[in-house]
C-alpha cells in the first residue's frame, strides 16, 4: 500500500479510538509516522504541534493535515484531515441521534445522572491541565484565576477576557 494509503488508514483508526480528543493518541501517531516510517523528523512533528496550537481553528486536524502534506503533498493533507475528522464526526452524529431519541428511557436517565458529574469534573480538570502548561509565572496564574472567577460570577462575554489577556500579553505583562 502507498504511504498515503497507510497514513490515512492509520489516522482513521486512531481518530476512532481517541477518547478525550486527538492528543490522547498523539504518542501512537508520533511512533507511526516518525519512528516506524520515518516520513518526518522528530523536529517536524514538534514544530507542527506547536504551530497548530498557535493558529486558531481545529488544532489537531490542522496538525494532521501538515503531517499528511509532508507525506504526500496536498492530496496527503486532505486525506489526513479527512481521516482525523470524519470517523469521530460520523460517530458523534449517530451517537447523538440515538442518545436524543431515547432521552426519556429509564437507562438513559440513569446514565445521565451518573455520567454528567464526571463530565463537569473532567472539564475543570482539562482547564487545570491546560493552566499547568500555560501558567509559567504568577501573572499568568492571576489571569487564569480572574478568567475563571469572571466566568463564574458575571455574564461578561468571555471574548472580552480573551481580548484583555491578549492585550496584557502584547504589552509583555504575562
Amino acid at each position, binding site marked *: 500500500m502507498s504511504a498515503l494509503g497507510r497514513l490515512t488508514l492509520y489516522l482513521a483508526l486512531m481518530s476512532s479510538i481517541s477518547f478525550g480528543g486527538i492528543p490522547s493518541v498523539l504518542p501512537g501517531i508520533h511512533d507511526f509516522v516518525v519512528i516506524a516510517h520515518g516520513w518526518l523528523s522528530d523536529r517536524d512533528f514538534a514544530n507542527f504541534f506547536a504551530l497548530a496550537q498557535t493558529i486558531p481553528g481545529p488544532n489537531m486536524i490542522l496538525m494532521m493535515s501538515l503531517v499528511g502534506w509532508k507525506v504526500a503533498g496536498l492530496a496527503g493533507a486532505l486525506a489526513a484531515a479527512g481521516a482525523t475528522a470524519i*470517523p469521530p464526526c460520523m460517530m458523534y452524529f449517530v*451517537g447523538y441521534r440515538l442518545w436524543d431519541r431515547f432521552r426519556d428511557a429509564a437507562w438513559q436517565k440513569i446514565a445521565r445522572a451518573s455520567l454528567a458529574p464526571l463530565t463537569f469534573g473532567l472539564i*475543570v480538570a482539562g482547564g*487545570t491541565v491546560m493552566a499547568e502548561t500555560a501558567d509559567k509565572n504568577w501573572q*499568568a496564574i492571576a489571569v487564569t484565576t480572574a478568567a*475563571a472567577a469572571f466566568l463564574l460570577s458575571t455574564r461578561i462575554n468571555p471574548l472580552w477576557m480573551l481580548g484583555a*489577556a491578549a492585550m496584557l500579553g502584547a504589552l509583555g505583562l504575562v
Partner: protein
Amino acid sequence: MPLAAEASQPLARASLGELFYEFLKVSLLGFGGGIVLAHRAAVERRRWLTEGDFADALTLCQFMPGPNVVGIAICVGAKTRGALGALTAFAGFVLLPGAIGFALALVYLGQTRVPLVENVLRGISPAAAGLMIGTGLRLLKPHRRDLRTILFAALAFAGLAIVKFPLLLVLATLAPLGVAATLYNRASLR
C-alpha cells in the same frame, strides 16, 4: 440566573447561516476553550438549547472518541436542524478555519518567528484555561447541594488533574461506580 431565564423563554430555531456563523466564530476564537464559547452562543445568546440539553450533549461527547468541541458542534447542529444542521456546523467549525489555518501554516513554516504573536498567545493561553475551569464550575453550580454530583465531579477532577491517570482509566473506573451510586440512590432521579 441562566436557569430562571431558561424556564421563561422558549427555544429559538436556528437558521443554517446562523449555525455556520456561530461555529465559525467558536472555532476561530476558541483557543482551546471552545466549549465556553459554544455554550455562550448556543445556550445563552441564541437559545437554541437549554442548559440541560447542552450538558447532555457534553456528557455524550466526553464519552465518545474524537475532538470533543467538534462533537458539540455536530450535536448542536443535529439538535436544531438535523443532518443538514450537523453538516453546516461542521463546515463552519472545521472546513473553513481548517483551510485558512493550513494556508497560514504553510506561510508561517517558511518564516522566522514573530515575537508579538508569541506574546499575545502567552497572554491568551492562561485566560483560555481559566475560562474552561470556570465553565466546568458553572455547570456544577446548579448541583451544588447534591452531594453525589459534587463527589463524583471531585473524583473525576482528582483522577485526571491531580493523580494524572489516563482519561480512559478515569472513565472506565468512575463510570460504573457512578452508575452504582445512582442505582443505590434512585431517589435522586425523582
